[in-house]
C-alpha cells in the first residue's frame, strides 16, 4: 500500500521539485539531514552497536582493538548470572500489574469521567497530577508513606514496633508490590487521560443507539465503544508495555535496584557504571530488553503507518 501511494505521488513530486531552486534543495537537504543524522547517530547506531557488542567480550579498558568476538557466550552466561532471573521476573510482574490492573483501572476512571459529571475537571486533575512528577520524585514521596517508623502507612496500621514492624521497601518479599502501588499511582492517571481523549472522540450517536437498543452501560462499552476505540487501545497497550520495560528511576532512588527490586534496566546500568565494567555482557541484557520491546514497537508502527497518506 505504501509502495503504490509513493508511486502515485511521483508525477506530482517531479512537478513540485522542478519549482525548487538549488538553495531550496539545499535547505530541504539540511532540514531532513540534520535531524535524521542526530537521531540515527545517537539512537540507532547505539542500538545496533548494542546488538554487535553483545557477541563480544570487552571490559572497556583500552581501545576498541581490545574487543574480542566471543559468539553467543554472553547469552549462555545469562541464565547463571544470579540477578538475571529475578530481574526478568520482576519486569514481567511489573508488566502484568500494569497490563491487568493499572491500565484497566485507568480505563475504568476514564469511562466514569466521560459521563456528564459536575466537577469532572477536579476529578481529572487529581487523578492526573502524579503524571507530571518524575518517577524519582514519586519514589521519594512514597518513601514518606512507607517509612518504617515515621511513615504514614505503618503509623495508621499501628505496625511501628520492633515486633510487628512492616518494612515495606526493605523486605524483599513485599517491596516490589509496594513500589508497584506507587508506579501504578502514576500510570493509572496517564492511561485515564489518554483514554478519556479517545472516548471524547466517539460519536455520541453510537452510545445512544446502543442505549435505545436496550444495551446496559456495560454492554454499550464492551460491545460498542471498546471495539470502536481500537486505535487508542493499541496506543494504550504499547505505552503500558514500554513504560513497564523502561521502569528504572523509582527503584534506583529507593535502593539502587537491589534486594528484591532488580530490573533488567538496572542490571544494564550496573554493568557500565558499576565497578566491574562488562560491556559485552551488559549489551546482551540490553538485547533481551530490545527483543521484548520490539513486539509493541512493531505493533505500534503497523498501526501508525497503515493510514499514512503519502
Amino acid at each position, binding site marked *: 500500500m505504501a509502495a503504490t501511494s509513493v508511486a502515485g505521488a511521483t508525477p506530482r513530486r517531479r512537478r513540485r521539485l522542478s519549482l*525548487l531552486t538549488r538553495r*531550496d534543495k539545499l535547505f*530541504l537537504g539540511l*532540514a*531532513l539531514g*540534520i*535531524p535524521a543524522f*542526530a*537521531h540515527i547517530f*545517537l*539512537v540507532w*547506531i*547505539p542500538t545496533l*552497536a*548494542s546488538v554487535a557488542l553483545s557477541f563480544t567480550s570487552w571490559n*572497556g579498558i583500552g581501545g576498541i582493538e581490545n574487543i574480542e568476538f566471543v559468539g553467543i557466550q554472553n547469552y549462555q552466561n545469562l541464565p547463571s548470572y544470579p540477578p538475571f532471573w529475578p530481574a526478568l521476573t520482576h519486569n514481567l510482574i511489573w508488566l502484568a500489574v500494569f497490563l491487568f490492573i493499572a491500565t484497566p483501572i485507568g480505563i475504568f476512571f476514564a469511562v*466514569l*469521567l466521560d459521563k456528564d459529571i459536575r466537577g469532572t475537571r477536579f*476529578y481529572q486533575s*487529581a*487523578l*492526573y*497530577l502524579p503524571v*507530571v*512528577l*518524575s*518517577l*524519582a*520524585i514519586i519514589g521519594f*514521596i512514597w*518513601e*514518606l508513606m512507607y517509612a518504617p517508623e*515515621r*511513615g*504514614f502507612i505503618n*503509623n495508621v496500621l499501628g505496625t511501628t514496633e520492633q515486633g510487628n514492624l512492616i518494612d515495606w521497601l526493605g523486605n524483599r518479599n513485599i517491596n516490589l508490590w509496594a513500589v508497584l502501588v506507587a508506579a501504578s*499511582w502514576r500510570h493509572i*492517571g496517564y492511561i485515564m*487521560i489518554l483514554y478519556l*481523549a*479517545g472516548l471524547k472522540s466517539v460519536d455520541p450517536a453510537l452510545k445512544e443507539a446502543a442505549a435505545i437498543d436496550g444495551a446496559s452501560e456495560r454492554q454499550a462499552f464492551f460491545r460498542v465503544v471498546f471495539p470502536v476505540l481500537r486505535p487508542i487501545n493499541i496506543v494504550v497497550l*504499547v505505552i503500558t508495555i514500554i513504560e513497564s520495560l523502561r521502569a528504572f528511576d523509582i527503584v534506583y*532512588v529507593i535502593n539502587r535496584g537491589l534486594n528484591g527490586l532488580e530490573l*533488567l*534496566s538496572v542490571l*544494564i*546500568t550496573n*554493568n*557500565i*557504571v558499576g565497578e566491574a565494567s562488562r*560491556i559485552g555482557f*551488559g549489551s546482551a541484557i540490553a*538485547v533481551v*530488553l*530490545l527483543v521484548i520491546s520490539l513486539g*509493541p514497537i512493531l505493533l505500534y*508502527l503497523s498501526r*501508525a*503507518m497503515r493510514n499514512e*497518506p503519502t
Partner: protein
Amino acid sequence: MTTVAEEQVEAQVAALTARRSRIRWRRVALYAFLTATALVWLFPIAWAVYQSFRPFEDTAAAPVAIATRLTLDNYVNAFTQAEMPKFFLNTIIIMIPAVVTVLFLASLIAFAVSRFSFRFNLALLMLFTAGNLLPQQVIITPLYRMYLALPLPRLISDNGLWYDQYFGIFAIHVAFQLGFCTFVLSNYMKTLPRELTEAALVDGASVFKTYWSVILPLCKPPLAALATLQVTWIYNDFFWAIVLMFTGAKRPITSALNNLQGQFFSDYNLLAAGSVLVALPTLIIYFALQKQFVRGLTLGSTKG
C-alpha cells in the same frame, strides 16, 4: 375507559419516579466514589507537603498527628545544605536549549516529510517513531562508550569529551525526543491544506520562507503543547544524567536527587521539603498549562 387510562398514567409515573430515585442514588454513589478516589490520589502529595512544614522533633515524637508548630526550616535547610539553586541552574542550562533545539529540528524535518514527497519519507518516519519507543537502557551501553570516545571542542567541554558535559546531556535529549516531536508535528502539518505550500512556491517564495512564514506560524498549537510536554519530560529526566554525567555538582536537579538522598538520610522532613521543592516547577507548569500538557499527550496518541 378513563379510569384505565388514569391507572396507566399513575403506574407510569410511579415507575418513572422509582427509576429517577434509583438514578439519583447511583449518581450520589458515583460522586462519593470519585471524591474518595480523588482524595486518596492527592493524599501522598499532601502528606509530603504536610511533613515538609513540620519540625523534625515533632514528627519523631508523633508522626501522624495534628501539627502544633509549623516551620519553614526544612525548606531553608534543603535549599542551602543541598545547594539546590546550583542544581536548578544545571537543569536550566540543559533544558532550555534542548527544548528549543528539539522543537526547531522536529519542525524542520516534519515540514520536509509532510510537504514534500520523498521516496524514503515513510521509512524515515518509522525510524523516528520506533526510536522514540525504545527503552533508554537498550542504547546506553554503546552510548556511554561513544561519549567517552567522541571529542568536543574545549569551548563547550572542559575535558574535551561528550562524557560528563552539559552538551552531552543536551544532545541525547534532542536526539531521543526528536522521535516523538517529529511524529506529532508531521501528523499536524499533514492536516494543513497542500495548497498553502504550493501557492507560496508558485508565488516565488523560497522553501525556507514557506516553512518560516507560512507553515510554522500555523503550528503554534502543537508547538505550545509539545514545549510544555518537553519541558516537563526533560526536567523530570533522571537516567541520562545519572549515567552520562559523572560530576555530581553538574547534574540537573532530578538526577541530583540521587546524591541528595545521602544528605537527607533519615531526616524525612528534609526529604519531604526537598521533594516538594523539586516537584514544584512541574506542578506549577501543570496548573498553569494543564490544557497544553494534555493536548500534547493526546496529539501523540489519537492521530496518525
